[in-house]
């Protein structure tokens, strides 16, 4: 039988019911979820971002699920040496990035090949990782969990470790209605927590929503205008990303060995049109998430703007949006325009997000 859940744990009729219900909602992404509507948790959100937070039907958001996900996110039990948690590299104060170009925080101590991305408004992303290779949050976390240079966790051992720690057994029961922990449920809980990491309360948001006491300086207003003219083609809407992949002219030579992370989206599609393409990162909280780009090559936002104005390297997959009339790729920016843009980008910092106690390390792990 394909879905053999540990049967000795399923002794009572009640357990069988939850087992069958679990199979039902597990069985197909299009099936109705098992959880009663009353448990489904509407994450708080502002209208300028979206009307509601999307989630897959097989992993509806619940309070218990989000809270369990938060605990797992901060718990080093999820790594091989029990010393590294998701939060070791995803720091709330940096919008869940780490301030390091390429981290060596993993179990092996080996330098990673890509920069730790922020975790902001992920619910709307269709692809995750810099190359959008992970198709949803429910699949994403298996990557860092098991990668030998990241958390290096043996998935076969993880459920037993969790069953013997804190009140995880009860928490999984509450969140998913099952008595047996599976790594799939660990990742689902993490997905629920990550979906709750919503940033929509920056000075920009308050200004756009026309809230009282919300104002922009003249420089910030100028910056917003320049942004709308020259940046929002990719960093679009109030998500400040189009969720697509683009080549923004960082490199003109790409390694062609199998699975090389520096190939960009090509690594996933093996389509040469995707060489050097990476996901457009959101610009929310951009002022606190240096260094920048998939490899953290730029130390500050001024370097980023200088790249676009005069440092882009040409390659056939560079996005056509950058092409000037002479064919060269760039975003023409004067020094005063850069100053205004930098002032505007600062308004995207969301202190409520960076300090939200619901996103912080739970007391039990302090």
């Amino acid at each position, binding site marked *: *039988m*394909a*879905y*053999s*859940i540990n049967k000795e744990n399923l002794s009572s009729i009640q357990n069988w019911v939850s087992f069958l219900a679990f*199979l039902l909602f*597990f*069985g*197909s*992404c*299009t099936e109705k979820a098992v959880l009663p509507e009353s448990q489904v948790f509407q994450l708080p959100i502002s209208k300028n971002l979206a009307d509601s937070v999307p989630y*897959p039907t*097989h*992993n509806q958001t619940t309070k218990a699920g989000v809270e369990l996900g938060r605990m797992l996110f901060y718990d080093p039990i999820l790594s091989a040496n029990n010393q590294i948690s998701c939060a070791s590299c995803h720091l709330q104060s940096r919008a869940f990035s780490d301030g390091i170009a390429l981290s060596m925080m993993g179990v092996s101590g080996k330098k990673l090949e890509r920069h730790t991305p922020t975790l902001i408004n992920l619910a709307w992303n269709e692809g995750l*990782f810099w190359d959008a*290779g*992970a*198709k*949803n949050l*429910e*699949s*994403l976390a*298996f*990557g860092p969990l*098991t990668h030998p240079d990241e958390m290096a966790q043996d*998935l*076969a051992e993880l459920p037993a470790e969790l069953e013997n720690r804190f009140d995880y057994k009860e928490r999984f029961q509450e969140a998913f209605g099952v008595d047996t922990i*599976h*790594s*799939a*449920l660990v*990742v*689902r809980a993490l*997905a629920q927590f990550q979906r709750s990491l919503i940033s929509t309360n920056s000075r920009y948001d308050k200004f756009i929503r026309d809230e009282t006491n919300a104002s922009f300086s003249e420089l910030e207003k100028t910056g917003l205008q320049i942004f709308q003219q020259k940046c929002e083609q990719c960093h679009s809407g109030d998500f400040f990303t189009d969720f697509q992949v683009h080549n923004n002219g960082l490199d003109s030579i790409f390694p062609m060995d*199998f*699975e090389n992370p520096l190939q960009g989206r090509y*690594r*996933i599609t*093996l389509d040469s049109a995707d060489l050097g393409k990476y996901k457009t990162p959101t610009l929310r909280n951009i002022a606190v998430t240096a260094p920048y780009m998939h490899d953290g090559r730029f130390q500050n936002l001024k370097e980023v703007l200088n790249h676009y104005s005069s440092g882009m390297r040409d390659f056939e997959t560079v996005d056509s949006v950058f092409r000037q009339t002479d064919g060269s790729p760039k975003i023409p920016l004067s020094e005063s325009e850069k100053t205004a843009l930098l002032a505007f980008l600062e308004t995207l910092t969301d202190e409520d997000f960076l300090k939200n106690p619901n996103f912080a390390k739970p007391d039990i792990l302090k």
Partner: protein
Amino acid sequence: MKISLVFLLFLGSILVSCDDSDVTPESVNIKFKFNALADNSPLVLNTKTYQNANGDSFNVSDFKFYASNVKLRNSQTGDEYQEPISYHLVHPKGDIPSYTFELKDVPTKAYDEIVFFVGIDKERNASIDAIGDLDPNNNMAWNWNTGYKFILLEGDVFKANDEKGGLALHVGTDTNYKEIKFKVSPMKFKDTEAEIEFDTEIMTIFDAPNVIDLSETSTIMFGATADKVAENYAKMFTLKQINF
């Protein structure tokens, strides 16, 4: 007289029991058995060296694949049985390597088609948060490029200069989800247990219809060569027998 009566009763009971065996049960449990063969003999893991049509020498340390969405169908009446939640990691083991899974409580109809797929359907292949046969812990999921390996064959390739290279066929992606279909004479179930037995010839993966060249690269995961391997594995099954 007395003896004759006993004899008649005895005879009657035989007849009744013969009648019984002709009554079709309402449902049947059907085993699907897959034998792993190489060169028409049971696959020998690790210790035996094989040669493909391209002339490459190799051995096999592991072989497994997904058989999914198993169906039995009557092409005349349209009667169809589809196993619910039908994903099986076929992992042949043992001296004569084989793997068996069972379809439970299948309505006994005169099915004349057996259908299953190698791989995972597109909807299911878009997320790897699964348990049981689809658990990522089975070393059949890609986590950096979401989806399942539909087939995994690993071992060593032996080069001319006695060097050894890794052999890794990890083939998946939606385009390589392959339907396997067998037409059979209408099934007539006599018992509540039945078995359908397939031979799975691994040399076909390397040789037919596409000859796979392992001398250049013996790591085959994505791209044109992987697609050719998939065309081959779609042909690796033969229906050996059906026991009712």
